[in-house]
């Protein structure tokens, strides 16, 4: 290489970096995840520090969707990258999201990659991170475990008996359930209770097995802290001692383990007659068609999928990687505890994994409402189970027919819309 070419190379290098610098407005990362102030701070300082100028802004779903829709309607945007749950993306028009198939990054799970196509042929978002729902308990509660019960292989009956024992001993109902306004109770019914009792969600919605499942739910509710209708983040009740045995999202339990790791244990969700139902949580990153700087946005999406970013994300948010990574040994206690529980759950002999609802489009909220309404009417309102299920069944069938969504596991596959039997 001649001196001359070296100089031109250096000059153009400087020029390129200058241009890059000038055009480098912050990429706005508009997210519904990692909202708690500590997590968003960790996202900014650790996960995104090496990704150039990124403005990470987590929002409530309300402002999140309002701003996004406004930019799409105005055909002019500031949002560079979207971070949200699978359900948020599936409620969007796929045309509003940039096709990311040629980006060259994807998750290690073909199931997740398929989900991210949102019913099209190309990837509309890239799977970003995953989590699940698990059980956790205060160690003080362990002494009341029913005889012969293994905490890592509980059944629903044993869980109810356990709650009963705790109640008898302490005089208080200490099972905690996320039934508050922001609680994720619908996922318990869709991914845990129904699969464990009916081996389905949609097809078996109003079956006789479903009646049994709701009867069990009533029994469980009898040993549940009645203030659960205010609980949305069970880490709070674990820490305050208002609840000893709880069910929630792994990242909504994390603070309890990180603050007092020796006081709590995490373990798999219970099993019913048709296995140990459980369900993943999948978050993704996507680019809206109005993104101001497409290249920078794509670079950020690619950055989020790098193994080291994924590990940093795990530390920051307690969401697990979706790509193959070697987990380091010094992870926070919450990550270790939750990771073990999820591994035991998916590795159990009677595991009955469910998938996320797919193909529901913007009816995902209505779908959740069917389950939440059933819960409020059956368990809180004390209405007749059969009558409520028969009534809600019509609404569920209408949603399935309108969207034409095919069945997803554990329901048996369907031709066309998933039928409510």
């Amino acid at each position, binding site marked *: 290489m001649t001196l001359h070419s070296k100089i031109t190379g250096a000059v153009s290098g400087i020029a390129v970096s200058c241009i890059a610098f000038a055009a480098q407005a912050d990429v706005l990362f508009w997210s519904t995840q990692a909202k708690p102030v500590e997590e968003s701070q960790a996202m900014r300082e650790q996960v995104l520090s090496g990704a150039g100028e990124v403005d990470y802004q987590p929002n409530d779903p*309300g402002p999140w969707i309002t701003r996004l829709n406004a930019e799409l309607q105005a055909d002019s945007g500031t949002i560079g990258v979207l971070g949200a749950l699978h359900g948020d993306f599936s409620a969007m028009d796929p045309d509003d999201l940039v096709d990311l198939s040629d980006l060259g990054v994807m998750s290690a799970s073909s199931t997740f990659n398929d989900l991210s196509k949102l019913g099209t042929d190309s990837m509309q978002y890239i799977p970003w991170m995953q989590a699940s729902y698990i059980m956790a308990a205060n160690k003080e509660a362990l002494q009341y475990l029913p005889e012969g019960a293994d905490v890592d292989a509980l059944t629903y009956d044993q869980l109810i008996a356990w709650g009963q024992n705790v109640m008898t001993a302490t005089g208080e109902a200490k099972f905690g359930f996320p039934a508050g*306004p922001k609680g994720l109770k619908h996922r318990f019914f869709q991914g845990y209770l129904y699969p464990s009792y009916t081996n389905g969600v949609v097809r078996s919605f109003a079956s006789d097995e479903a009646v049994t499942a709701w009867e069990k739910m009533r029994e469980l509710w009898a040993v549940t*802290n009645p203030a659960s*209708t205010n609980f949305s983040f069970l880490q709070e009740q674990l820490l305050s001692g208002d609840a000893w045995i709880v069910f929630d999202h792994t990242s909504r339990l994390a603070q309890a383990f990180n603050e007092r790791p020796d006081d709590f244990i995490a373990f798999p969700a219970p099993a019913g007659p048709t296995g140990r139902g459980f369900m993943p949580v999948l978050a993704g990153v996507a680019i809206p068609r109005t993104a101001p700087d497409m290249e920078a946005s794509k670079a950020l999406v690619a950055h989020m999928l790098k193994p080291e970013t994924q590990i940093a994300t795990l530390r920051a948010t307690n969401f697990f990687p979706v790509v193959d990574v070697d987990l380091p040994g010094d992870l926070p206690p919450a990550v270790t505890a939750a990771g073990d529980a999820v591994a035991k759950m998916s590795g159990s002999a009677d595991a009955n994994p469910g998938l996320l609802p797919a193909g529901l489009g*913007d009816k995902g909220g209505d779908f959740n409402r069917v389950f939440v309404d059933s819960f409020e009417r059956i368990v809180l309102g004390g209405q007749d189970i059969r009558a409520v299920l028969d009534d809600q069944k019509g609404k569920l069938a209408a949603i399935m027919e309108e969207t034409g969504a095919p069945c997803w596991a554990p329901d048996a596959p369907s031709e066309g819309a998933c039928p409510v039997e």
Partner: protein
Amino acid sequence: MNARILPYVLILPVTLFLCLFFIYPFVLVSQQAFQAADGGWSMENFQEVVEYWKFPISMKNTLLLAAIVVPVQLALALLMATMVSKMKKGRDMVLYIWTIPLGISDLAAGIIWLAIFEQSGFLNSMLHGIGVVDKPVNFLTYQNPWIVFLAIALAEIWRATAIMLVILVAGIGLIPKEYYEAADVFGASKWKQFTRITFPLLRPSLQTALVLRVILAFEIFAVVAALGGTLFPVLMGQTYSYQFDLLNSGAAAAMALIILGISIGFTLIILRILRVPKGASI
């Protein structure tokens, strides 16, 4: 300037401003309420939200809450305003303290009052400390709907009485002291002074305070969500749930219009009852 044109000149800025930033988006949103799934005009959305099983409960809860909270706030604000008007020492400080809740948003108020009423909260700590209860009582549960209601009402009274207080205090300040001095000379009792002087002369302020408070009472949401959880559905909570959980903006707009209708109804009633007589002057 011509006295016939002057009022219009004076209200022009507000009208233009509101047309741009309120009427324009309002019309766009309201249209959605009357739009059917196929794009035509229909009342489908209204039918949908009214037939939902939680609608009657939300309606009852919202009205009941307003019916209890607003009169208590009015009485309390009147009491506080008259008390402070008699004060000689420390009036500034007392009035400042009483207006503090003005600065607290409903979200923050929800956080504060939940810390009081929750199972391991301050109320239980207090009851425990003085030995009334052995272990914390669960107040906010579905078995005690009245306690939940009471907690929400207390939090609302705490949070929003100051709005009325400031308006009334400003109004009372305009009543000339001579009226009371004259009443004293004639030996009128304090109660008589209140009913014969303060109350009638305070009408314009009372009207304003009540109307604003009632409208805001129908929009109550954040405090209810914090304390009542899912136990106490209110109209505004349903509206937000349609808009942001179900992504059904037509139904949300229909709910909002229903709330608007109720607000207009009550506003008209209050304006009627507390009519400021024409040419009202002291």
